[in-house]
């Protein structure tokens, strides 16, 4: 049986994986069609401010009378975009760093590992916060900061896999056959790294969503009138006694998206890493605190 066929049969056996993939498709689909399924415009004032849920407004209205459900739906897109951009920044910088570090070693490796040490010396959210404080509060700067903070996740992982892979016989063979460094890194080492990066991508995405919502909650990320979930959480918490569904629904949305991507990471690990013997719950996912 080929590797893909084996993966596919494992997928069928695993109902949870299917549920996760459906949930992922649902979230992405919702982000894609957000404006057309939202009952009202995300910025339109459609009713009296701070109303409790009613048939016309399922989650009530916010501080100036916008429909909470509509803003929540449109906010899906901001959340996914922030997660994607931040994680891509971390991948695009971290993966080449790890490859070069692990492959060439010596001075280059030492220099890059010191940068990694420096990044890891800070509690992640504090470093992201400090960067946003310096660069100015905006969604773009938040995405950049979260991306930079997450570089070590990828550089360290890729470096470790590269170090292990470069000792293997087929890599030695590729070199003996006259392959240059670029060829060896691209054709012999990278394929080994790629599946691990996929798994880590999903977990880093979850952390990015968590951190973006946190920073926006603190007033350092997306700015009003953006329907960012973190921002809605902050504004909603000041109106807990009048419409608790405002803050609670935004919080539930963050939780569900993070849950989907955390479970996706676990699923990908089971699918793509045939060497791992999975004992239930033995390998804790690498999400950071939030």
């Amino acid at each position, binding site marked *: 049986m080929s590797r893909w066929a084996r993966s596919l049969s494992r997928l069928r056996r695993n109902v949870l994986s299917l549920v996760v993939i459906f949930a992922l498709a649902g979230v992405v689909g919702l982000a894609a069609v957000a404006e057309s399924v939202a009952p009202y415009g995300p910025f339109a004032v459609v009713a009296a401010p701070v109303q409790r849920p009613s048939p016309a407004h399922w989650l009530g209205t916010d501080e100036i009378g916008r429909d909470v459900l509509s803003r929540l739906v449109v906010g899906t897109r901001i959340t996914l975009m922030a997660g994607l951009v931040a994680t891509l920044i971390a991948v695009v910088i971290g993966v080449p760093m790890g490859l070069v570090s692990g492959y060439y070693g010596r001075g280059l490796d030492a220099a890059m590992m010191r940068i990694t040490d420096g990044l890891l010396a800070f509690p992640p959210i504090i470093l992201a916060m400090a960067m946003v404080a310096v660069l100015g509060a905006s969604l773009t700067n938040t995405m950049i900061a979260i991306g930079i903070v997450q570089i070590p996740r990828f550089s360290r992982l890729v470096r470790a896999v590269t170090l292990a892979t470069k000792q293997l016989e087929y890599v030695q063979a590729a070199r003996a056959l006259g392959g240059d460094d670029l060829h060896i890194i691209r054709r012999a080492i990278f394929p080994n790294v790629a599946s691990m990066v996929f798994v880590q991508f999903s977990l880093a995405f979850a952390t990015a969503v968590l951190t973006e919502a946190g920073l926006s909650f603190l*007033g350092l990320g997306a700015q009003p009138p953006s329907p960012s979930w973190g921002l809605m959480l902050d504004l909603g918490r000041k109106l807990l006694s009048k419409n608790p569904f405002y803050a609670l629904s935004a919080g539930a949305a963050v939780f569900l998206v993070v849950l989907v991507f955390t479970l996706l990471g676990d699923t990908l690990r089971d699918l793509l890493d045939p060497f791992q013997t999975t004992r239930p719950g033995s390998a804790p996912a690498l999400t950071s605190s939030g």
Partner: protein
Amino acid sequence: MSARFVAQRLLHGGLVLWIVATAVFFLFRVIPGDPAAMTLGFDAPPEALAALRAEMGLDKPLHVQYATWLFNLMRWDLGRSATSGNAPVAGLVFPSLWRTLELASLSMLVAISIAVPLGMLAALRVGSTVDQLARVVTTIGFSMPTYVLGIVALVVFAEMIPLLPSAGYVPPAEDLVLHIKYLILPAASVGLVMAARLARFMRAGMLDVLSQDYVRTAYAKGLPGWRVNARHALPNAILAFVTEVGVNFGLLIGGMVVIEQVFTWPGLGWLMIQSTLNRAYDVVQIAVLISAAAFVIVNLLVDLSYGVMDPRIAYE
């Protein structure tokens, strides 16, 4: 524990602290705009701006500024905040740090007292209802932001059933009972989320130990199950767990930022946010430095304590 091991860890800790201090220095030098103008306002008279720049040392070359920064840190002079009425920065930062540590410690206590029994039971009865339950709880805990749980706690215990005050802070000297009441909801929110993470480690660590030869030997010499677990398995499982607690405690110090905002708990994170919003960059800079230093020091202590508890480590 060998002196060499301690010296090695201390040296490494010192090196990381230096990297942190350097990173913070350069990070806060790339601020777009002039810190003096931000403090006084952009329409301030040029003489006043020049005077403040001189006072903040901004008129000197970068390497002189950097040397001054390191020198002052080494003799524990955190400076005065030009942006906050010339108050000593240490007087702002340290009381906040203690309040953060107070909240973090209590949260960790909540987490440990849930995680240890839950993780142990799950490991001793793999596949049982307790194990399944632990699995669901930990999966939820991994994805639950503490601030969301905090808001849920506020809705339930301050709004729906008004058992506790909603958010705020009272110094313990003023009203100890109220002080503790304000602590309960944030500590429980952070503690529950942390418990989920730690329970997973406890379970994995315990499973690991239970498969060791010495546990089999203990059974073979006829010890009852509870005694094997209490005397042979648990102490060894706790070892790995302590490292995890330490690392997570370090992360908690930073991770408190958002929860402190939810409960308006005036800790280090809260100070950082307030200072950022007030553009008091000299305070933010020191607060970030202290937060990172606390993180580094906690990690150092974890390394050292691990050497004390497990002498094998220190000789590797």
